[in-house]
């Protein structure tokens, strides 16, 4: 069993996904953190200057918002099914509001899991949970 397998098993039991994210270089680069709340993995991204997309607003880069949405979906799927991580087949982001230079959250809701495919909807928000900055949807190939 790989080290990641062990960490995922522990995270699925404890609800603390930070030890898993600490092993993923890109998650460390962005500064992602994730905790289980109820049955949902809530992804948290503290603001940092390297995340800025528009300096005059300033705002969080749209690609970072997309990355948070996609990561929320992949973590939610791994929480529900275990490893391996699903592979993204397609992924769409609707940008609804400016993501301000503040903490960002992302959550995912699995709409359907078949034998091979999972369809997932995602939502990114800041201080107002009912005012999402972006919505995502994607199809994921299960391992």
């Amino acid at each position, binding site marked *: 069993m*790989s080290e*990641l397998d062990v960490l995922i098993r522990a995270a699925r039991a404890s609800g603390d996904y930070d030890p898993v994210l600490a*092993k*993923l*270089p*890109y*998650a*460390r*680069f*962005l500064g992602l953190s994730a905790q289980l709340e109820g049955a949902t993995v809530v992804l948290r991204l503290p603001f940092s*200057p*390297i*995340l*800025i*997309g528009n*300096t005059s607003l300033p705002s969080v*880069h*749209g*690609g*970072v918002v*997309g*990355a*948070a949405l*996609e*990561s929320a979906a992949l973590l939610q799927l791994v929480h529900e099914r275990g490893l391996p*991580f699903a*592979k*993204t*087949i*397609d*992924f*769409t*982001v*609707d*940008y609804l509001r*400016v993501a301000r230079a503040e903490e960002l959250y992302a959550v995912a809701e699995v709409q359907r899991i078949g034998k091979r495919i999972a369809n997932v909807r995602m939502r990114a928000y800041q201080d107002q949970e009912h005012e999402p900055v972006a919505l995502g949807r994607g199809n994921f190939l299960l391992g």
Partner: protein
Amino acid sequence: MSALSYVEQFIRTLPHGQALGIQLVSCDPTLGRCVLSQPWREELVGDPDSGVLHGGVITALLDTLSAACVIARSIRPQATLDLRIDYLRPATPRMQLLGDASCYRVTRHVAFVRGVCHQGDPEQPVANLTATFILQEDKS
């Protein structure tokens, strides 16, 4: 200031683009076409076992690229409306990614972009991209 200088300035001054190492490879203002590069870097890996860059890096590259294509047409995007990425084949680890897209249609309010992400051969794309932008309101 020419459209090309705007695109160069946009890429050069984008903090997240700089953090990722995104660079402008070429830009054709007539076609609204830009090519950007994203170097392979250890710290951007999503899966430590395969060494493949995280999908978020591709999303950031293609979002940046789409905006650059709109700016190349001498118009100012206000915001990305939506962005869709289809993952066509796995990326090869330890190789740079190239994003190649065009802003192929502009209306009074909206700009449309399509393109690909590849690793040297545009006929073998890693991903397909479509994006739409709402434009800044014409104050004149």
